[in-house]
């Protein structure tokens, strides 16, 4: 008997050792890749620009949070406590918040331009900075309109600014090198050309063809299957990490998806009826893979609170409250997350882990799936419990959160020790 137990312990030890070595390898490879990516001029300029834009973004994120919790007509606390607040000029307030979001992008484009051209050793950066600042305005707003589409298109802003910077660099170097005047007609022609491209792209990105196609795709019953949910839990953090705006169904409450509506209809008609789609985006992905936003980044805010670096601690404190309500933009700009392999790997791992555990718990009837409607801006960490009225979901949520912390910890430790892009 003693021999069997000793043998078992040895086996467990071997498996543990194997996983430990594997994870060390993964972390080392990711860290190397991260250092390689950070050497890229465009990426390092983008990350610096994001960090410099952070204070403005913080104002924007907190203003939106206040609106979503208290001020808007369907705000969380207004709904929960049945408050009958009479907020004057609610519509104008929403419009102001949308404008602020675009202003953040304009500042990001301007800061990136300045950073990138400094790296390229261009001295006269005023005109390209102004051009990209205005270009972003035309790209998202145009003629006094409010952006009705997602403004988290960071990749688009950075890429367009990058192309504009490169074109300016070569234009100045090869065509206009003998002209020291920064606002010479030939430079103004360049600026006019860039702005024209931004205006034409404005009409292209305003068309919500891609987004509505994605929404239709997500309504497909394939995304109620195991494979479909696994794909979503991998692709969503990947696209978000790339700076591509995600459809509403992947960042918020996907209450408009067919499977969710059919489940709700069934449960409202008969509480004991068998659900047609027990596993779907709402009951699995939203309830267990979205703690703190895409990539379950609530764990990052939590880990940063205990960081040895003051700056990181402050970021943890600053991002914790919005993270509780599924907004992780502050971490995206503050760490930053954008295009960094070091953070992509744990994001996909935690997202996938949440989906796997949530899916298994539902199909084994350990917990009831979330089917009931929950108020807007409900923290994702409470969706599993509130949407199903099942307290066991809280236990699953706690386990997934604890595992997310374990997954993120070594990656954040490396990130905190090697902040190589900071000047």
């Amino acid at each position, binding site marked *: 008997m003693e021999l069997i137990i000793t043998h078992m312990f040895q086996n467990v030890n071997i498996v543990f050792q194997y996983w430990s070595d594997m994870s060390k390898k993964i972390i080392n490879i990711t860290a190397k890749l991260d250092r390689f990516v950070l050497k890229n001029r465009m990426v390092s300029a983008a990350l610096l620009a994001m960090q410099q834009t952070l204070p403005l973004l913080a104002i924007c994120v907190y203003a939106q949070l206040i609106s979503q919790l208290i001020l808007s007509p369907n705000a*969380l606390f207004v709904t929960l*406590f049945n408050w009958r607040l009479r907020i004057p000029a609610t519509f104008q307030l929403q419009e102001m918040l949308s404008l602020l979001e675009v202003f953040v992008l304009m500042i990001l484009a301007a800061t990136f331009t300045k950073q990138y051209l400094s790296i390229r050793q261009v001295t006269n950066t005023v005109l390209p900075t102004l051009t990209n600042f205005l270009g972003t305005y035309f790209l998202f707003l145009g003629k006094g309109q409010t952006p009705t589409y997602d403004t988290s298109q960071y990749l688009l802003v950075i890429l367009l600014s990058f192309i504009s910077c490169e074109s300016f660099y070569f234009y100045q170097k090869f065509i206009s090198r003998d002209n020291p005047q920064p606002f010479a007609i030939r430079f103004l022609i360049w600026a006019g050309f860039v702005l024209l491209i931004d205006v034409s792209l404005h009409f292209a990105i305003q068309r919500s063809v891609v987004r509505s196609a994605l929404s239709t795709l997500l309504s497909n019953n394939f995304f109620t299957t195991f494979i479909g949910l696994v794909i979503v839990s991998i692709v969503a953090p990947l696209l978000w990490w790339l700076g591509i705006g995600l459809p509403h169904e992947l960042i918020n409450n996907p209450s408009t998806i067919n499977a969710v509506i059919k489940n709700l209809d069934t449960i*409202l*008609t008969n509480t004991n009826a068998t659900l047609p789609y027990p596993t779907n985006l709402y009951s699995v992905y939203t309830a267990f893979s979205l703690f703190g936003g895409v990539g379950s980044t609530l764990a990052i805010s939590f880990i940063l*609170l*205990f960081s040895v670096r003051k700056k990181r601690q402050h970021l943890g404190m600053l991002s914790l409250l919005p993270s509780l309500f599924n907004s992780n933009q502050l971490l995206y700009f503050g760490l930053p997350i954008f295009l960094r392999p070091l953070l992509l790997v744990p994001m996909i791992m935690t997202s996938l882990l949440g989906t796997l555990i949530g899916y298994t718990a539902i199909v084994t009837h350990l917990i009831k799936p979330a089917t009931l*409607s929950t108020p807007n801006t409900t923290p994702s960490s409470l969706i599993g419990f509130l949407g199903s*009225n099942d307290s066991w979901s809280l236990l699953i949520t706690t386990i997934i959160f604890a595992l997310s912390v374990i997954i993120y910890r070594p990656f954040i430790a490396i990130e905190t020790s090697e902040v190589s892009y900071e000047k």
Partner: protein
Amino acid sequence: MRNKLIIISSLVLMVIIGFFGHDWVTHTNNNQAKIQNSRMAPIIFIPGSSATINRFDNLLNKLNTPKSTHSILKVQVNTDGKLVYSGHIRANDEQPFIVIGFQNNQDGYDNIKKQYRWLNTAMADLQERYHFRNFQAIGHSNGGLIWTGFLENYYSSDSFNMTTLMTLGTPYNFSEVTLARRTVMLTDYINKSKKLPKGLSVYSIAGTEDYTDDGIVPVQSVIAGKYIFQKHVKAYTQITVSGSDAQHSSLPENTEVVSLIQEYLLANTDTTGRPTP
């Protein structure tokens, strides 16, 4: 210490949201279940300007003759948004009559805007009390304008399913005798007509006393409703009644109008006598 405080505060916040969220979810979904399973589909009446909740008494008596099959509930919305109920809905009555009137029942576009806001308050309260989703509506004179304003500004197909709207002598272009001159109200209603429910059937009844009007509302103003409803709802039908009792204020008691209500609204029942949605 500071971190402990932050984590404890976050946990407390989550517990509060979890506790009140649980209450909200239970209450909202119980309510939704009752609405979903409700068999009641009332006919809701709104009188015109200057009229009270008793305006339709004669019409309702005629509709309840020879046998009183539809119970009657009257609701008055006061200017402070408070609702005063009179009458009752009989248990198991699947097609009760509900009359909604307003303490401020004055004419004018500004007042109509207030009235359809009050109508929204009344509808939400009625749904909370009686858990119905399907309903049909009748509006006499400005009552039709109030229904149209409500449909374009407050109605949500997530909460309600309005199947039929019948308007009696409703002045969609106020007192304008020509369609060439559109009032601000008509322009506003036309601009928002895309928000009208797609599955709605609308019957607009005009009265003619002397070929041009019903004594108060020009026929052309009633006909202007086509610019609002046509192509935006499932069906839009324009009907003109004439004769000695086709005068504006007599329209609700007009024999032809009563027949039309019986044919298009009361007859909307299935083989078991239950109102069809």
